[in-house]
C-alpha cells in the first residue's frame, strides 16, 4: 500500500493516454463478462446436469415419441432408482412471439428427478392433486405477471384436444424456481399434468417424448444406458440413452459451438488489447527512464524497481478489468429484462470472475514484463547521463 501513491502517479502521469488505455481495457473486460455470461447461459444445461441422470429418447430423433409403457421396464433395470417422463407440448401464450417450453409430466416423479428446482410443498401438492394443474418457472410467471390460482390459456402447436381445438386451459397452481442462477434458466418453462394432457389430447395417447432416468451410481451410467437401449433393440421404438450432460451439450451444439465462438472473439479482443496496452506501457516506461534511475539512486533495488513497473501494469489491469467486469454485471439486469425471459438468465458467476482475474494477470504480465526487465537492467549512471 505504501507504494500506491507512487504507482498511481506513474500511471496517471499522462492522464489522457492512461484514460484511453484504461477505456480499451474496460471495453475488453466488459465484453469478456458479457460473452462469458452468454457462454455460461448456453452451457448451463450441461454444467448443471446431474451425473446420475440419464435421458432416454427415441433412437433416431428426439421428436419421435416413445411408449409410456417403457417406464416400467426401465425401472426394472438394475441400478435404476427412478424414472420420469416428459412430453413436448409446443406452447404459445397470447401471440406467436410468446413461445416457451411446456412439458407434460407426472408431477411427483418429475419433480423428484430435479431436486435442484425449488417449489413449496403446498404448490407441489397442489400440482400433484390437480389434473388440470400447471406450475410455471418464476421468471416466466414474472414476465407475464401470472398469479397462482389463475387460469392459464395456452395454445399448442402440435397437440389438438379431442374436440380439435389447439387452445388449452390449465390452472396455475404453483411456481418453480432455483437457488442457483445457472439452474434458474432451466426453470423457464411450464409443467402440466400428463394425466389430464394424455386424456384430453387427440393424438399420441399412451406416448411420451423422453424419459429421465435416475441411477444409483454415476460410474455405472454407460452400462445402464446400454442395458436400457438393449431392452428395446429391434422393437418399433428403439431408444438412445445417454448421460444428461452429453445430451445437453449435443443440444447446445445444434445452435452452434458457442464456446468456440466466444473464445475466438475474446482471443481477438485481448490480442488487440495486448498490443495496444503493451505499446503504451513500453512508451510510458521509456519516457520515465531518468525517473526510474532516480528511484535506483535513492536506494530502490533493481528488484524493487522491476516490481514497481510490473505493479503498474497490474494496477492498470485491476482498474480496467474491475470496471469492465463491473459494467458487465451492471448490464445484466437490463439485458435479462430485454430478452423478456426468452433466453436463459445471464449472470456473471464466481468462475467468470476468477477467469477474468487470470486473464488480467496474464495480460499484466505480458505487457509489464518487457518494460520491467528493461527497468531492471537500467544502469543509473547511463540513464542519468542520457545514454
Amino acid at each position: 500500500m505504501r507504494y500506491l501513491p507512487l504507482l498511481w502517479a506513474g500511471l496517471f502521469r499522462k492522464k489522457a493516454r492512461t484514460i484511453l488505455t484504461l477505456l480499451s481495457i474496460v471495453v475488453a473486460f466488459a465484453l469478456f463478462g458479457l460473452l462469458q455470461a452468454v457462454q455460461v447461459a448456453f452451457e448451463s444445461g450441461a454444467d448443471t446436469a446431474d451425473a446420475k441422470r440419464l435421458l432416454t429418447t427415441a433412437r433416431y430423433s428426439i421428436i419421435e415419441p416413445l411408449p409410456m409403457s417403457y417406464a416400467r421396464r426401465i425401472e426394472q433395470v438394475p441400478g435404476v432408482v427412478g424414472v420420469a417422463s416428459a412430453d413436448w407440448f409446443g406452447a404459445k401464450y397470447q401471440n406467436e412471439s410468446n413461445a416457451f417450453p411446456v412439458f407434460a409430466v407426472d408431477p411427483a416423479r418429475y419433480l423428484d428427478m430435479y431436486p435442484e428446482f425449488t417449489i413449496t410443498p403446498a404448490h407441489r401438492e397442489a400440482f400433484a392433486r390437480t389434473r388440470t394443474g400447471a406450475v410455471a418457472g418464476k421468471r416466466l410467471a414474472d414476465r407475464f405477471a401470472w398469479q397462482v390460482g389463475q387460469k392459464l390459456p395456452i395454445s399448442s402447436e402440435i397437440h389438438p384436444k379431442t374436440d380439435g381445438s389447439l387452445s388449452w386451459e390449465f390452472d396455475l397452481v404453483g411456481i418453480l424456481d432455483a437457488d442457483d442462477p445457472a439452474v434458474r434458466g432451466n426453470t423457464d418453462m411450464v409443467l402440466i399434468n400428463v394425466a389430464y394432457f394424455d386424456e384430453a389430447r387427440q393424438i399420441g395417447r399412451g406416448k411420451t417424448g423422453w424419459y429421465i432416468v435416475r441411477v444409483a451410481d454415476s460410474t455405472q451410467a454407460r452400462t445402464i444406458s446400454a442395458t436400457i437401449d438393449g431392452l428395446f433393440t429391434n422393437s418399433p421404438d428403439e431408444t438412445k440413452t445417454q448421460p444428461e450432460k452429453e445430451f445437453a451439450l449435443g443440444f447446445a451444439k445444434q445452435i452452434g459451438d458457442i464456446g468456440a465462438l466466444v473464445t475466438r472473439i475474446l482471443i481477438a479482443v485481448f490480442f488487440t488489447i495486448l498490443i495496444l496496452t503493451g505499446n503504451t506501457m513500453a512508451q510510458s516506461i521509456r519516457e520515465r527512464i531518468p525517473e526510474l534511475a532516480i528511484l535506483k539512486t535513492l536506494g530502490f533495488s533493481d528488484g524493487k524497481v522491476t516490481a514497481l513497473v510490473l505493479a503498474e501494469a497490474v494496477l492498470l489491469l485491476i482498474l480496467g478489468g474491475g470496471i469492465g467486469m463491473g459494467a458487465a454485471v451492471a448490464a445484466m439486469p437490463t439485458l435479462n429484462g430485454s430478452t423478456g425471459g426468452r433466453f436463459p438468465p445471464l449472470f456473471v458467476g464466481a468462475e467468470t470472475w476468477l477467469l477474468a482475474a487470470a486473464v488480467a494477470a496474464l495480460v499484466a504480465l505480458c505487457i509489464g514484463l518487457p518494460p520491467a526487465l528493461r527497468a531492471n537492467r537500467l544502469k543509473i549512471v547511463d540513464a542519468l547521463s542520457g545514454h
Partner: protein
Amino acid sequence: MIAVATLVEIRRVTKVYRRGRERIEVLHGIDLDIPSGDFVALMGPSGSGKTTLLNLIGGLDTPTGGSITVGDRRIDQLSGGELAAWRAAHVGFVFQFYNLLPALSAQRNVELPLLLTDLSAAERRRHARIALTLVGLEDRARHKPRELSGGQEQRVAIARAIVSDPTLLVCDEPTGDLDRATADEVLRLIQVLNHEHGKTVVMVTHDPKAAEYARRRVHLDKGTMTAEPVPA
C-alpha cells in the same frame, strides 16, 4: 589539534569504460581522504573524471580497480542490492537538473527515500514536512515540480537528499542550472547542512564561486588529481 575521522577513503581507484573495442580509462589511480564533516569541491575541466569520481563515492557506480571505503564499509565490494541499501541509508543526492518526479508533489518527492524505511505513513509525512521546513519550503509541500521555480525545485531535491538523515551528501553541479542569486541561496543551504548539521558534502562544480563555499577544493584533470587538497 583534534584528529578528525576519515569518512571516505579512496585508494588507487581506477575506472575504465568500454565503448565497443575501445577502452577508456577515466580515472587513473586516485587517492583521496575525505574527513567526516568536510565539504569538498571537486573541480576540473569537462572530461576530467570528477562526476565519475562523485558517482563512485556515492555508490552509483563501482570502480574498475582500487578501493573505496565509506565509514567502515568497502563499498566497491558490495553487490548491486547491498549498494542500493547502503545508498538509501547513508547517501543523499543532489543533481544539476533536480531530478524530481514530475507527477509527485514536493511532499511526496521528499518522502520517496522514506518508502524504503519502516516508518509509518504519518511518520513519513512528518519527516518530509521537517525537511521541507529546513529548506524553507513548507508552504510549497503540495506543489508539483512544474509549479516551482528552479531554486525551489533544487531546495526540494535537497530536502529529499537529507530526509533520511544521511552521513554523506553528494552534489553534482547543484547550481549549474541556476542564476547567481539563487545559486548562492542553494549553496548557503548546503553550507548550513555542512556546518550546522554535520553532513559531509562532496560537490562537483565548474564554478569557482560555488567552490568557495566548500572547506577545500580538489582538482582533477584527465583522471588524475592535479594538486594536493588545499584548505579553502
